[in-house]
């Protein structure tokens, strides 16, 4: 028996769905494994539901995992479950926080803030104001709601309040900007494209489209191209789909807000490794970042910084040496 192997902490990184975004995250986990000498598994709930997550967590505990980094699907209602998990293993959250639970800390950014950053991009692209259409995978997911709310609040010049929620069919009209509609596509790409096309059909005056999920900005781009309205409709995206980045390079997409899933993965491993090694609860406290929040801020990627960002991304995901 190799004593070094025996001592390696066993960790897990649990996401809230299957997505390209999280494959980048799992590269971060991979990097963290090497760097901090841990064993780790990545678990992605295929249907992206809370009950799948519950069963995954239970099986991880059964497996004897010592530390778990989780992106909770429904933080509000999962508190009791998370507390139970926290009593059997070290639990931290990433990407989406569950502040009411006994998780030790949160790694990530605030989706509401990221949404506001996205809103700023819209403002830059459309200084004179206009009609905006939002595309989102679905609206019952916490991060989606917060992102959308951030965009709306920023555009309507509202105060910073992450708990606000405008219903899907609510009228959102400010002095300059008007949110005409929010379309959901339930992660079906063809449907996303159809929704973007139908929005362009319905309103001849749409001035900007915002895609809040990773695969959506390229679909909007396709739709705008097919409608021959390239350049007439500003596009703002979220996340780092390669077609989005290419669109920015080509000047068809104004910009995108990127999170840093790679760092979520890597830093989760780092923090969990330390926390698991420390048995004493008091000393553990000391290891935590201030306020139990490790901020990995979102960034705005525009034409000026897209190249550098893209190269770095390719490197991290092993697509380019």
């Amino acid at each position, binding site marked *: 028996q190799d004593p070094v192997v025996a001592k390696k902490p066993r960790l897990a990184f649990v996401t809230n769905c299957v997505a390209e975004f999280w494959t980048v995250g799992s590269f971060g986990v991979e990097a963290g494994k090497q760097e901090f000498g841990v064993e780790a*598994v990545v678990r992605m709930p295929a249907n992206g539901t809370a009950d799948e997550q519950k069963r995954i967590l239970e099986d991880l505990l059964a497996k*004897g995992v010592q530390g778990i980094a989780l992106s909770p699907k429904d933080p509000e209602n999962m508190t009791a479950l998370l507390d139970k998990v926290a009593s059997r293993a070290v639990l931290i959250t990433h990407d989406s926080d569950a502040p009411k639970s006994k998780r030790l800390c949160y790694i990530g950014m605030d989706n509401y803030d990221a949404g506001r950053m996205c809103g700023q991009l819209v403002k830059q692209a459309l200084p004179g104001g206009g009609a905006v259409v939002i595309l989102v995978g679905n609206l019952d*997911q916490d991060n989606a709601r917060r992102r959308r709310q951030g965009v709306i609040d920023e555009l309507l010049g509202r105060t910073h309040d992450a708990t606000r929620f405008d219903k899907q069919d609510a009228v959102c009209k400010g002095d300059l900007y008007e949110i005409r509609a929010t379309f959901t596509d339930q992660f079906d790409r063809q449907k996303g494209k159809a929704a973007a096309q139908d929005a362009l059909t319905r309103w001849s005056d749409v001035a900007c489209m915002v895609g809040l999920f990773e695969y959506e900005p390229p679909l909007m781009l396709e739709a705008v191209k097919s409608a021959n309205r390239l350049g007439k409709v500003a596009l703002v995206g979220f996340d780092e789909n390669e077609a989005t980045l290419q669109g920015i390079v080509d000047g068809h997409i104004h910009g995108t807000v990127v999170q840093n899933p790679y760092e979520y993965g890597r830093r989760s491993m780092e923090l969990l490794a330390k926390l698991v090694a420390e048995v004493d609860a008091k000393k553990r406290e000391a290891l935590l970042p201030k306020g139990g929040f490790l901020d990995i801020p979102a960034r705005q990627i525009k034409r000026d910084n897209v190249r550098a960002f893209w190269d770095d991304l390719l490197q991290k995901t092993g697509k380019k040496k």
Partner: protein
Amino acid sequence: MKKIVGLVALLLVIAVITATFSYDPITDSNPFLSAYNLENLLQRVGLFGVLSVAAAFVIVTGGIDLSIGAVVCVAGCLLPWFLRDLGWSAPLAILTTLAIAAAIGAWHGLLVVGLGLQPFVVTLCGLLLYRGIMRGFTGDQTMGLGDTAEELRWLATGKVALTEQFGLPVPMLLLVGIAVLTSFLWTRTVWGRHLFALGRNEEAARFAGVPTARLTVAAYIACSLLAGLGGCLFVLDVNSAQASNFGNFYELYAIAGAVLGGMALRGGEGMVLGIVLGAALMQLLPNTIRLLGDSDKLEFAVVGGVILAGAAADAVLARWWQRRPRR
């Protein structure tokens, strides 16, 4: 009976493999056989088993219910609403939810029997319709119990202690109860006899004076009622339901469990014990994968592959059995 033996064998083989490979020499423990894991497994079998029995009620009649997942969604969204937003008492909330589920079943039955629509069509539309209505109703907000109804959650997460370490999960007990009742209903009562007869040859049963229309409607009601019960248990278990995906695909798991357990989709054939075993297999496999595998990417592939292999082996063995020379 041969089917049952085959299923038990398959379950045992997978269990033994999982137990062997999940053994952890460092801690000298066996995660798969830990009380915690076994309890979890039994609880899941209980939850999904209820849905498979539900599916079986309609399959017996030669029909199919694709709306089981959507009914789970309806129950899962409504129960928290009754309990938390309307502040109803637990019994009232549960009964109302079940009544609504039963009404959905009755409506399916009437469409199938009264208008002669294909069950596949009716329940496929139902799938879209109910989930769509729930999305509208909840405004795409997550429905959760928060910390209300803590006692009620016992139904889904509670255990009846057998030893200090190990307790039987309540959903498993519920499933056992439902299975015994159903089995009794199917094999010992006039109602069950008639149900199986009409499932195989509706016309012949009608000519024999069996009230086929009424019975078919009853089967759809039983199906949706159990699906609704399942929905209640699921939401009590995970405490949160999103209309757009709660119970998604569960109809397929439920039907797969039932069919795996020996229900023939042409109707009039099957045993409850098989269904429970089929549902158990559907839960054991993901557990195995998650305990042994480094990634769960191949989960679906393994589940699909094993079921298919099992079904194929079953067919091959049955042939061999038939061809075998008799004395």
